[in-house]
Every structure is written in structure tokens, then in C-alpha cells.
């Protein structure tokens, strides 16, 4: 009899601000709760905030700078990984034996070091869902959010104002450009690297959902289909290591193929050949 790996218990939802993480979380919560699971949604922001406050209390100013608009600005990017360590210590480590599915949402330009602190056991119980959209699309969506948030603040409630999620966070274009990608070329490279790194994580499963088109309902339908057909079985039952291996192998192959056939990579290869 082959050895079994227990059901998945954690979902990491990652992607650039505006790529559709919140929509994925909402739909995932609906599917899980509609199938009699309990679930809880978390983010890394409270942990970053905790680190900032701890630094300020101990008069340590080399990792954060206070900012009147956004509370704080991160000076040392290593705090992002530190926050994910706290996520592990406080959410994953304490969840042993819990039947509640934890959904953890966060965003990074690169994910190479994000999960270094995580044990294989924890990653084996984790699914990674990656919302993908180009930086330009994400910037445009963030600008739309800004307008909507401003309208809400002005009290101009229209049907449009509530079409978007209530938990929208606005990220200005400067942050998007500086933190995520300067231009389309860098964005394409970053996107490829993200897919590669995340698909190679020893997690239970990796799904990349493309949300480049501006069709919320079509994307929601895709998320629902993936959640019901691909994710739900992983929460519901054990899986043999053999099945786990073959499933991940197929996923990895599909990701590699999508990277290899991405238009930008083809262009790069062509320009290299010409040179």
C-alpha cells in the first residue's frame, strides 16, 4: 500500500496588487464554505505592522520609515520575509489538527525567499494560487480603484462604486513601478521567474490563473471551476505520494511549456539569435 499525504489545509494566494487575489479569496471562501469547510482569511499586513511597531518602540529605524499617508515605508526588504516567518509561526504552526482552511493572501515582486522558513510538512499541506496579470493592467486597475475609493469618500455612491470588492487597497503607480516592475520587459521577466519559482516550490499544488482580460465574471467563473475541480479534492481527502508526484510533474510540465511558449521569451530568443 502506498504512503498517503494528508489533506491540504492552507492556501497561499499571491500576485501583483490588482491581479485578482481578493476575488480568488472570495470565490474560494464561497466554494469551501458551500462544501461544509470552515475557512479563515489572513494577510501578511498585520505582521508587517507588528514588525514596524516593534521597531519604533525599540527606536530602531533602519528597517522602516514612518509615513503619514501609508503608516510606514519599508526600507529593508528582508522584513517581507520576516513577516512571512511570522505568518508561519502564528498561523501555520498553530493550525495543527485544525479543520479550518487558512487562506493567506500576500504580494511580492519575487517569491524566491518567501517560503524558505517553511517546513516541508507545512508546504506539503499548502496550495499556491497565483493571480497573474501584466503590470500595466494592474496599474490601470489600481487607478480605477483609486477613483472608486475617492467617490466613496465623497459619498458618491453609484452602482459602479460597489462593483469592486469592498476590501480594495490602492497601490500608487510609483510603488507599482519601483517595487514590482519598471517596464513591460522587466515585468515579463519577473512574471516568468515568479511562475518558475512558485511552480518549483515543494507545495501540494500550484495554479497560475491569468487575469489579463478585463472580464471579472469570466475570471470568477475560471476561479470557481479550478476551486471546485482541482482544489476541493485536495482539501477533502488524502492523496498517495505517487498521485502527488504525477500530478505535480504534469503541472510543472504545463508551467514550463507555458513559459517556453510565452511571446516575450520567443522574442528574446529571436533577438539573441539575430545578434
Amino acid at each position, binding site marked *: 500500500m502506498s504512503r498517503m499525504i494528508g489533506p491540504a489545509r492552507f492556501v497561499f494566494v499571491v500576485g501583483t496588487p490588482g491581479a485578482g487575489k481578493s476575488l480568488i479569496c472570495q470565490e474560494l471562501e*464561497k*466554494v469551501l*464554505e*458551500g*462544501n461544509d469547510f470552515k475557512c479563515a482569511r489572513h494577510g501578511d499586513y498585520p505582521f508587517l505592522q507588528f514588525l514596524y511597531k516593534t521597531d519604533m518602540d525599540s527606536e530602531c529605524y533602519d528597517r522602516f520609515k514612518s509615513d503619514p499617508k501609508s503608516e510606514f515605508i519599508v526600507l529593508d526588504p528582508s522584513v517581507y520575509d520576516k513577516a512571512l516567518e511570522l505568518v508561519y509561526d502564528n498561523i501555520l504552526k498553530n493550525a495543527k489538527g485544525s479543520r479550518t482552511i487558512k487562506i493567506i493572501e500576500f504580494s511580492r515582486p519575487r517569491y524566491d525567499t518567501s517560503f524558505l522558513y517553511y517546513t516541508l510538512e507545512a508546504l506539503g499541506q499548502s496550495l499556491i494560487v497565483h493571480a497573474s496579470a501584466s503590470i500595466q493592467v494592474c496599474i490601470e486597475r489600481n487607478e480605477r480603484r483609486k477613483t472608486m475609493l475617492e467617490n466613496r469618500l465623497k459619498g458618491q455612491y453609484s452602482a459602479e462604486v460597489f462593483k469592486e470588492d469592498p476590501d480594495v487597497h490602492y497601490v500608487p503607480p510609483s510603488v507599482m513601478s519601483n517595487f514590482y516592475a519598471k517596464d513591460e520587459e522587466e515585468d515579463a521577466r519577473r512574471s516568468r521567474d515568479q511562475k518558475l519559482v512558485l511552480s518549483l516550490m515543494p507545495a501540494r499544488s500550484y495554479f497560475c490563473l491569468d487575469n489579463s482580460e478585463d472580464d471579472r*465574471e*469570466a475570471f*470568477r*467563473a*475560471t476561479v*470557481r*471551476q479550478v476551486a*471546485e475541480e482541482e482544489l476541493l479534492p485536495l482539501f477533502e481527502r488524502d492523496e498517495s505520494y505517487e498521485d502527488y508526484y504525477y500530478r505535480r510533474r504534469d503541472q510543472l510540465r504545463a508551467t514550463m511549456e507555458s513559459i517556453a511558449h510565452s511571446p516575450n521569451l520567443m522574442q528574446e530568443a529571436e533577438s539573441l539569435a539575430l545578434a
Partner: protein
Amino acid sequence: MKKAFISYSHHDGDRAARVRDALGAIGWSAFLDSETLPPGTAWRKTLRTELISSDLLIIVLTKAWVDSDFSIAELDNYVKESRRTSKESRSVIPLEFERATDYLIPQLDKHQIVQKAAELSDHALRWVLFCGINNKPPGPREHWAANGSGLTPTVVAIPEPPKSPRLSAAQRLRLESKLSHIQSPQRIREIAWKMFGREVELPEDSKIAWYKLVKMVSEAGLTERLCQATDLDYVRLFGSSGSGEKGEGRPTDKQ
């Protein structure tokens, strides 16, 4: 099988049982609280849900029924619920077993009452119920028994509507969004009862409740019935299931 709710006073249990038998003979099931509810059941809630999920209300009209406030409340609930849906088959058939029309019951005014029901033979009762259900003139009273003797469940059974194809994720989302204005957990539970004829455990959060119910309905092939119960136009939403016409997107057989 279509279902009728028999509203009666407990003094008239035997008459209610006769009506139940007559319905059974023409292919209908009947809800009789004394026979259907297990002892100790939370009867008020179950009765209400059974009542509003029924396709037909039959009143065993007697003095005792008129004197009972609860019976009138049953009729009120049924009529109120009928107004909320466009279900054609939701009719009321009052069978006057005792002269009771001297009493003022405005809710019954518009319904044709079957008089002297106590004098009807089993076959005649069967015929008059068949005509009431199928909106058919019963003809001369002296022919009722003869007409009723020829009725069998196989002849009169109303075929169940064909099963609707399963919906895709996108189609379920569209249906959920059309239903999202219904947020009362009680109302959603009542609709679930209508769909499955039993209590369905649903979460309090209306979004999740609709997700779960629409999924169950889609898997059971009851989408068209759900649309009828909630006044949605199935053909407009999904296209005709048999004609090849296309609506905003036809349900798919895939999955």
C-alpha cells in the same frame, strides 16, 4: 409526484383521509400532518414549509375548520406564497363537507367551492379533484362518479418536467447573481424545500447559501424548476433546453 397539502381540523381526520386516498388514486401525494410528522417534530416550521412547497391546497371545509384560526392562517400563508410565484398549478380547492359558507371567509370568496362534498362517492370525489387540478369543467354532478371510476394514476399522472442540463460554473454564477436579491435565510430555505421536498441544511450567509443551493439544484437537474419558483425566465437565461434556441448561454452537458 405532485404534492397537495390538506388543510383540515383534527375533528375531521376521517374526511381528510378520504381526500388523501382520492388524491392518491389520481397520482398525487398528500401531506397530512397527523400521518407525516414524526412525534416531537417542530411542527409549526415543518408545516409552514410543507404548505408553501405544495402544488395544491385542499381545504376540508367544515364548521370546525372555520372556527380554527390556524386553518385560516394556513390559507393566508398559501395564498401569500402563491402570489410570490407564478406557478400555475398552485390552486386552492375547498371541499365543503359541512355547510360553512355562512361564515365570512374573504380569502375563500374567489374560489369555487365544491358543495355537499360529504355526499360524494369516492369516485366522484376523485373526479372533482381531477377537474380542479386540471382546470377542467366537472360536468353534471350525476356523471361525476362514472367519470371518476375511469381515472387511474397512470392515466392522470402529470409527468415530471424534463431534467435541466447541468450548469457550468459561469452559468451558476449568473444564476446566483440573479438570485442575490433574495437574502432572507428563511426564504432561501423555503425555496430549497420546494426544490427537494425536504429540509436542506444551508449556511446563514445568503451568498454561500445560494452557491450551495444552485449547485445542488444544477446537479439534480432542477434548474428550470428553480427559475419557476423564483420568477426567473429560464429560457432567457439559458435558452430552451430542447429546442436548440440559444439564450445568454445554454447549460452544458459537460462536467
